[in-house]
């Protein structure tokens, strides 16, 4: 049985001209995805993977497809939105999407000739062989309802292709902006293909303007070629009433090094799935995450690190700061396949509760099928340390500031792992502002 909203969502399902032809490879994929979503429907809390994240509210909202036409967004409207400021900062190539659609006016993909950074719609239209070879080949739309939904709606998003042997110093910033004035859904799709021996840093930001309810359902596939070095930032600062569901699927080749940063600040309900398959010997990945929740926000991070080949290394650190009546979920799986001998894996999830009413569900899972591996994991949940607060106060720093400072320090070791200095500083400032706001609200209570 499919609920009304699901029907409504599907009724907005259309094809652009290119895809209208029967037998177009992408049309086939989309057809399969929509059929699969029809079978799956929105996940319920009966599913283990969705036990603590209830999206039933989503099924009650009459979403329209996010408007592409007639929405004119200016640089001026983005002022003060810190992630937009980061995208517009000097020394950053940017692709800007408004409600899921490419904005040529706001984008500035001034890269060296060899790199392709463009809209996915254009790349599909131009019949890029890389798009055909990789799009929808990794993110499992047969298993995951939201991936199926996104795949069914593949139309636009970012396409980045770094050829073999290229080192791209300048970060590429993909900025997805939602401007909805009525409940709308967008399904941004990003495909990032980094060739063998190449190096690139890609920032993917999601921001919302305005207070209307909307759904962002993003899927990003990253293919890291042999010996490549890729750093991906997924930064979420959606507006208060937004639903944000995202999937980042990474496929790593031999000796590749991938770092994923995932920062969740905004949104009413957020679900992030990060899945990394170390599908080549000697691959290495680092997953860093930070979530800050207040009021009644909910953030769910599900990560899977799949060691498929020997000599893989993975490091994972996810940290959460929870205030008020907010809640969060961390579910981190590490899979070591039979072949993946000499795997070295470490996972840590740490949570700081700033309120008695906040809740966290943390679930590390190890599935080890090889016998010569090192795997460690740890979880901690705690309140700010009274002795530390007293130490700061004894130096003249007031209680509120002391708590903000400790909280900032707690978060800082995640930010410290970011290599893009300018972005890190912006995030630090945003974090301090957010924390002192939280502390102020608390001290008024």
């Amino acid at each position, binding site marked *: 049985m499919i609920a009304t909203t699901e029907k409504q969502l599907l009724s907005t399902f259309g094809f652009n001209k290119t895809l209208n032809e029967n037998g177009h490879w992408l049309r086939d994929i989309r057809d399969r995805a929509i059929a699969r979503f029809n079978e799956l429907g929105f996940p319920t809390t009966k599913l283990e993977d969705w036990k603590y994240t209830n999206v039933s509210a989503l099924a009650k909202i009459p979403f329209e497809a996010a408007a592409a036409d007639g929405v004119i967004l200016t640089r001026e409207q983005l002022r003060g939105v810190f992630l937009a400021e980061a995208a517009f900062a000097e020394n950053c190539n940017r692709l800007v999407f408004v409600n899921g659609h490419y904005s040529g006016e706001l984008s500035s993909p001034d890269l060296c000739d060899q790199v392709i950074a463009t809209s996915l719609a254009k790349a599909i239209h131009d019949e890029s062989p890389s798009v055909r070879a990789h799009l929808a080949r990794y993110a499992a739309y047969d298993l995951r309802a939201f991936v199926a939904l996104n795949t069914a709606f593949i139309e636009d998003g970012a396409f980045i292709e770094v050829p073999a042997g290229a080192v791209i110093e300048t970060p590429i910033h993909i900025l997805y902006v939602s401007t909805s004035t009525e409940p709308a859904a967008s399904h941004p799709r990003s495909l990032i293909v980094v060739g063998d021996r190449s190096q690139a840093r890609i920032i993917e930001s999601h921001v919302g303007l305005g207070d209307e309810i909307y759904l962002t359902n993003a899927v990003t596939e990253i293919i890291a070629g042999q010996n490549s070095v890729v750093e991906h930032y997924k930064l979420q600062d959606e507006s208060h009433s937004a639903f944000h569901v995202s999937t980042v699927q990474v496929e790593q080749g031999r000796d590749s090094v991938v770092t994923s940063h995932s920062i969740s600040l905004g949104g009413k309900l957020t679900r992030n799935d990060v899945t990394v398959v170390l599908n080549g010997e000697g691959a290495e990945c680092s997953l860093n995450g930070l979530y800050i929740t207040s009021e009644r926000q909910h953030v769910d991070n599900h990560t899977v690190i799949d060691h498929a080949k020997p000599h893989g290394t993975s490091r994972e650190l996810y940290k959460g700061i929870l205030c008020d009546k907010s809640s969060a979920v961390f579910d981190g799986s590490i899979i070591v396949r039979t072949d993946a001998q000499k795997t070295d894996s470490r996972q840590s999830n740490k949570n700081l509760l700033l309120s008695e009413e906040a809740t966290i569900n943390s679930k590390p899972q190890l599935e080890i099928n090889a016998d010569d591996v090192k795997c460690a994991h740890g979880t901690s949940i705690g309140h700010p340390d009274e002795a530390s607060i*007293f130490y700061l106060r004894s*130096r*003249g720093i007031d209680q509120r500031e*002391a708590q903000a*400072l400790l909280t900032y320090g707690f978060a800082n*070791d995640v930010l410290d792992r970011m290599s893009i200095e300018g972005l890190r500083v912006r995030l630090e400032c945003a974090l301090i502002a957010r924390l002192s706001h939280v502390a102020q609200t608390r001290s008024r209570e």
Partner: protein
Amino acid sequence: MLEIKNLHASIEGREILRGINLSVNAGEVHAIMGPNGSGKSTLAHVLAGRESYQITAGEVLFEGKDLLGMLPEERAREGVFLAFQYPVEIAGVSNMYFLRAALNTIRKHRGLDELDAIDFLKTVREKMKILDMDETLMNRPVNEGFSGGEKKRNEIFQMAVLEPKLAILDETDSGLDIDALRIVADGINRLRGPDRAMALVTHYQRLLNYVVPDFVHVLADGRIVKSGGKDLAHELEQKGYAWLEETAEPVKSGVSVR
């Protein structure tokens, strides 16, 4: 400067301070000695405003103001400084950020301009040199990964930067080798002055060879049982605390507070 009158304090219903009387004037250095569990550290923490202790009786005046009525941060801004026996590690916050924030709140309270990062570094550089501290320490998280000696030096360095009126040094000498002790003592001596008072809380007489006190008080079982000049410290070193405890009420067994 500091007037402690009949101070009683307890923790979790257990009385630790049982009527302390002490006055400290500007320019004086007082050593507060005593065996483990005598209440020395409790006294230091109570003066700094640690909230886990309950004040059950007595009063403390700091420059005529009711010290016990102030929050810990207010005491710091008024000029009270506690050098911790066990300085706390603050992950993710650099020494620079922390100390500049502290100095600026105190400066603001005194009606001075706040310092930016560059002016701040200029101000503290000289003081780092005195305490033989590596400048790279400023960019490291507060006390994190510091050796015991580095932590103690960092406390004295903070004192030098914040320039308090009353400095309470809680077991600053414990765990220091002789070289570190000399550096720390030198740092303390440079801060002695006619406008500043110091209370050195210590179990051992060793520090007092380098920082010579004007007065020595012996604390036992929550009371000052003997006061005297600097020679009292030597006497204690030779005879031990047991010699004094005989004159005080017996210490309850099992009571131990650092």
